[in-house]
């Protein structure tokens, strides 16, 4: 197994095109444990962290650009970003331990392809887009389209994500992410729920997005819950409809971390709670950025 650390996107894509079994990594917080657990080693391990644009957080006035290999600690420590997207920052900050936070990244969390990835529902509800580099240049995918099944990606073997684009948050908009784990940290979501809400000037809900983690083969959106919220003001009845829609959207499995029944029920609970937090944050963000 060879380790290479290209310094440009072009160098990396050309490496990938010429080494069919090459494997890219950012923080290696998933790759190294997988190799240790006996997964066949690739011929070449390509470290993306030495490419400048992959490790950056920037705001051009219209959108934020987050390098795919940026340590999540950089993201959560970026006050302006965390203030604008507290839900996404919290989700990114839940990955692993403090030590892992210095290595883990949004790109790695997404491309590991785990249905339980915490940052994915939070990116999805914020409409994040992935800028994908390949031998023929770049293309843009919605984050929601990147993972097609557990460990399965819509990327070609010689493609990787360079950065994520997230439009600046509109006025009266808030996001939130909650997860259930049996302990308080160092764990993997049994259920995760990301929500984003935009309020109209009259306080009713203008736009809503809800996405769940760890309850289906991939992160799932809950359009029925979103529809139940739009045009309304949250009350017990509507929140119950949100919870019911979230439970209904689940396609979970029984495993050592939870049961089908538990995941369905708690998906509803977390969906409701995440929506409430998002509304509260939206109410606090009355002006524009």
């Amino acid at each position, binding site marked *: 197994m060879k380790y290479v650390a290209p310094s440009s996107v072009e160098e990396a894509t050309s490496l990938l095109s010429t080494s069919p079994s090459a494997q890219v990594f950012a923080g290696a917080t998933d790759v190294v444990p997988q190799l240790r657990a006996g997964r066949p080693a690739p011929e070449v391990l390509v470290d993306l962290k030495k490419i400048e644009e992959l490790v950056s957080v920037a705001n051009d006035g219209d959108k934020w650009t987050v390098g795919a290999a940026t340590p999540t600690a950089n993201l959560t420590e970026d006050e302006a970003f965390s203030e604008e997207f507290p839900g996404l920052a919290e989700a990114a900050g839940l990955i692993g331990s403090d030590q892992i936070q210095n290595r883990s990244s949004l790109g790695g969390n997404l491309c590991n392809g785990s249905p339980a990835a915490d940052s994915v529902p939070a990116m999805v509800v914020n409409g994040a887009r992935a800028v994908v580099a390949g031998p023929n240049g770049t293309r843009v995918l919605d984050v929601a389209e990147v993972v097609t099944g557990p460990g399965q990606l819509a990327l070609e073997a010689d493609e990787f994500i360079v950065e994520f684009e997230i439009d600046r948050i509109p006025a009266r908009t808030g996001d939130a992410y909650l997860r259930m784990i*049996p*302990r*308080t940290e*160092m*764990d993997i979501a049994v259920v995760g729920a990301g929500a984003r809400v935009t309020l109209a000037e009259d306080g009713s809900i203008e736009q809503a997005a809800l996405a769940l983690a760890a309850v289906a083969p991939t992160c799932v959106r809950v359009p029925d819950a979103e529809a139940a919220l739009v045009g309304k003001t949250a009350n017990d009845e509507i929140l119950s409809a949100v919870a019911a829609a979230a439970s209904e959207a689940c396609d979970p499995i029984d495993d*050592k971390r939870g049961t089908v029944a*538990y995941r369905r029920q708690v998906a509803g609970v977390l969906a409701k709670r995440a929506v409430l937090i998002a509304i509260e944050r939206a109410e606090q963000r009355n002006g524009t950025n």
Partner: protein
Amino acid sequence: MAVVEENPGYKWVGTRPIRPDGLEKVTGKAQFGADLMLPGMLFGKVVRSPHAHARIISIDTTAAEAMVGVKAVITGSDFPDLAANGAHPSEIDVANNTIAREKVLYEGHVVAAVAATTRDQAEAAAKAVEVTYEILPHVLTVDEAMADDAPLLHEGMITKGVDPAPEEASNVASKILHERGDLDQGFGEADAVVEREFTTKPVHQGYIEPHAAVADANSDGRAHIWCSSQGHFQMRAYSASVLGISPGMLKVTAAEIGGGFGGKTVIYLEPLAVRLSQRAGRPVKLVMDRDEVFRATGPTSGTRIKVKMGVSKDGKITAAEVWMAYEAGAYAGSPVGAAGMTAIACYDIPNFVVEGYDVVCNKPRVAAYRAPGAPMAAFAVESVLDELARDIGMDPIEIRLANAAVEGTQASYGPKFPRIGFVETLEAIKDHPNYTAELGPNQGRGIAAGFWFNAGMMSSATVHINENGTATVVTGSPDIGGSRQSMALMAAEELGIPYESIKAVVADTETVGFNDVTGGSRVTLATGAAVVDACRLIVEDLRARAAKTWDVELDQVEWVDGQAQHAEGAQPPLSLKDLAAKSGRTGGPISANASLNSRGVGAGFSTQLCDVEVDPETGVTRVVRYLTAQDAGRAISPDYVEGQMQGGVVQGIGWALSEEYIHDSDGVMENPGFLDYRIPVASDLPMIDCAIVEVPNPAHPYGVRGVGEVGIVPPMAAVGNAINDALDVRMTDLPMSPVKILEALNDQGD
């Protein structure tokens, strides 16, 4: 701190100096089991069974032996047949657990081992060992193992303790029974009776340091072993037995130990490393991965326990009936015996039957874990007692006070208790502000108590006075919970010199007299008593030397504050430093040995108060406040005593809420790592408040009782009782996971 008896003016005992092993541990300099490197050393790897129960048809090592770098491959046939040599059955079990012969009895059971020049070569060679198995049906729980048509692990196992002995073999290794009074009469006198059934899962000790051993064999048959264990004399004895040699052929050096909690009182790797080293002619290191630690070491038993208890209106327990079955894992020897003796030992109960079964099943052989056997039984008994207190409207502390064992009570397991401090722990809880702290929404409060015997056993110590008047205290008890500090504090008190002038060390099996394992909370008691004895011999010697120097009778010399003083002040005092400097002129080096079989243990009691908050929509339980009161007899080193008290509670909270072995239907462990075997992390816990109770043990010079174990006995019931207080659901199946709590709440709503 709840001090029951005032400190009688000790200068060092009961103080909190800096721990002696701290610097080396925080700088990474301390040598743990896996740290030793020897010139020419090889790396070993163990081959383990992927099946829960299978017959070994053949093992082909030729491919592995032919690989680059491979220097030795061994299998069960490289070890003597102990059965043919007439060894005790328990020795045969140890040997067969170390490396399988005809059958593998659990997933992870060792079938072969290799040694090679590099770790990668060893791993590749281990994969190349070809084992052919005939897979056999397996049993994973006491229910499966005790079923009428259950497949047998040991075809000749006849249940012991049953009269007449059964004719048919079964998976039940033994039965235990404790009885007193008349059960029917007792239940007849009861105003309230509660009967419940409880289950618990196997849990692992969870020590941070995986097992590791290095062996260096000589061509004359002798070998040197370095390993991390709770007793290198025990490792020597077990290893010699498995290898079929005299213990004197082995020298064992204790490494620093990164946790054991009972799980390092047994051998796994040591004889394998010796045999590999003999075959290869080079030193060999074997280190387990975490995965191997889970699959093949520890854990403690999964259990099924039924408890029926009755109380009168005034809270007196009139009768108790306890039935329990404990998983032993692959070989006989679950802690059900201790469970039977401890289950109701906190209380003075006139009528009881306690019945228990030791049941083998296709899981790793259980090892000791902190108060082995007691916590599961206490979970059941203390949960039922809590329910009884509610039924008759009595405070949970008051019902325990109404039945508490005191000095003179005939213990449920036989002897009369000497002076004990159970009542004092109950009162310490009542006196603490946590007892009346206000509870928030969805919060609940639970109380539970626990008992543990504590062990005594054999210890040796040597004390040397150095030429400058400092001292070296040498024992053979691995320091797993602060014993070097406790030994130094007691020696400082005896010799009258500063704690900082004393170095306590743990010596190898050829340098100090025999010491039993560091287990049973016995080291501060028994090894401590040996240190005190040796120090007193030193003081006698020093007095004699002063008398000789002054040319006076011995009784004219007193030893006060680290110096010899003339009784009438006729001579200027001679300090230890003075006497040490002149030792060549007064009889030579100053040194003393003491060896003893402990003179009397001090039983340990703990009462604990737990506040939880349960999220009724997700079933997630957080412990928000926790208080533990424990009788330490005398806290030689209060920092370490509190550490033991808190450590027991933390492990108990993990056992209560999140820890469990999960096996798939093939008997393969599904969670052999700390991600899905969930020990609590720091953020899961509040500060564990400690109330040290000191009711001195009359059989120890400083009143020491063991403190290492009893703290893990009450937590599961304390947590369960608190959950019940919060939400009115009685949890009877450990762990009390969010999934189970939500199920219980859903059932409650139906």
